[in-house]
């Protein structure tokens, strides 16, 4: 019987460690906000953030490398036919796109480098005034090390949740991949 490819086993172990590490850091921040609208927008933002994190993770870590690229690109471009590049390139592209839309843009808007409309472009359900909300109380993520604005705190905390989600998806994906490869190459 063939063994599980070592590369995938290493990825799975690394991803599980990352998940645990980031979850520990993430729960150390308590987020509160006394302004009612801001609290509602905070909740809406958090919901949209987590939902899109899951969608991006599923699409860029699973659908694109496992379904889309093998069928539509693998016979035309060498990078798409290589299993390692086919996994890494879309994952990096997805993570960058996500970071840009859901972290960088709102952050830049909160610091007035971008208009709120542009900053909250990917979050149509969250009011654009959310960018100007300020923290009233609470311990804050890592003692407000990243700033006092709720958006900032929310985003940093959620970014970590997102990483945890990504880590979890990668761990599951790597385990399934290893299992699938092992089954395919089983000697008959």
């Amino acid at each position: 019987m063939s063994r599980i490819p070592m590369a995938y086993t290493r990825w799975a172990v690394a991803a599980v460690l990352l998940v645990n590490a980031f979850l520990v850091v993430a729960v150390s921040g308590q987020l509160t906000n006394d302004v009612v609208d801001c609290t509602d927008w905070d909740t809406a933002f958090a919901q949209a953030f987590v939902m899109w994190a899951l969608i991006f993770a599923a699409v860029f870590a699973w659908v694109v490398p496992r379904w889309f690229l093998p069928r539509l690109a693998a016979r035309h471009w060498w990078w798409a036919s290589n299993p390692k590049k086919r996994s890494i390139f879309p994952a990096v592209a997805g993570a960058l796109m996500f970071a840009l839309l859901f972290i960088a843009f709102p952050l830049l808007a909160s610091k007035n480098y971008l208009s709120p409309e542009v900053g909250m472009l990917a979050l149509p359900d969250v009011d654009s005034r959310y960018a100007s909300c300020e923290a009233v109380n609470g311990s804050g993520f890592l003692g407000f090390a990243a700033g006092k604005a709720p958006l900032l705190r929310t985003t940093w905390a959620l970014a970590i949740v997102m990483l945890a989600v990504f880590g979890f998806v990668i761990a599951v994906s790597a385990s399934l991949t290893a299992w699938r490869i092992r089954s395919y190459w089983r000697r008959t």
Partner: protein
Amino acid sequence: MNSTLIIAIGGTGQLVLHYYLQRYLTGRAKPFDAIVIDVDKLLPPLEKVAGLLDRARPVLTDVRLPSISYWRPIAPGGKTIREALAGNSDVDRFHPANAFFGKSELEQSIAEGLFARPALSSLVKLPSDLGTMRVSGRRRIITVSSVVGGTGGGLTGPILASLASSIRTEHADETSLRSVFFGEYFQADVKRLPDAAKRFPSNVLFVLRTLQALAPAELDSFSFVSSDHGGKRDTQREVTGDYLPWPGNADPIWTGVDALPALITETTRDRQEEFAKREITLAPSESAANAATLVARRVSAVNALIDRRVIEDMSRDPVPETCWGPAFPKVLKKLVSASATASPGNSADAVCRQLQGGLQKRWSDVRRVFPSEAAEAPSKPADIVRMAWDPNALRFDAAGLRIENPADFAEIASSVLLLQALREESNVGASH
């Protein structure tokens, strides 16, 4: 045994066979058996291809593969022709050989073979295998030789006679004997052969008149190839045989290569008593440029298979069949399974790495068979998918086949992979 047998006589015969084998390897010729008869050694590229085919044969038991045999005529003892005939090297001593051969012929080294002197063929003995070889079961036997050269000019007649005798003895009425004769088709190297201008036409006349008088009735037809504008032969390069360039459209060698499939498929004609009436004129079936492009494309695809380390990567791919189609991963799966005897503890990943390495090593040797200009046409992964992968052709369960040595396994597996990789899927039916 394949139904077609090509007998390549002398250097020209070997050269034509060299290109025709490339046509086979790239899927443009049907399988055939070949016998090379030459006083000189077998061309290295022919040796390489023969090795490749022999390594793959135990596994591709249901696939008809060409076989290449090399039969060397038995040369007389002694350093020079004079020594061989007279038993000494004394120029002044009388010997009847002086009456039949000129001074330059008698001084010729035995190591040089029959170089441009067909008359010297009377000194060599045909390989004994030729007399015992069975011809029944063959539909076509085609000899390829130059009537200018020593070996071709001198041995073609006796070989045709021997084959005709076997046909008669075995009552092999289905066997049709055909020939490609090359006349003067290249410029001689005057440094090596100062009297070439006289000698070559004389050789042609001598051999053709002999054939006219003595060619057996079983010789069904022949094609005669010659050219007044032939270039020089790069004999030095032919000796090593590495990366020999593809002949051009006007090159008589290409005319000879192109004549072979036509002679194989041409229907048997009514017997002609008169030798000259047996000559047939064949229309070109494919241009040399097209053939060269095909070879370049196949070489480039195999290069990509190796340079991109496709086999190694495939063992880590969760969806190999989606990327590469069903056939190629199944071929590798079969090889991974078959490696159990040679490398029982190895993972699929390790076996594929070993296969990739073996293929690279094999290709670095076989690549030299193809022209150097047959290179860098860009390849896409689709070219790998379109290779003639056939998992059903691999028969590791063949009786008596047990490969226990990992190096042996790597050699056999890489030969099989290479033979399939060099062809395109659409050509499988035509060739196997």
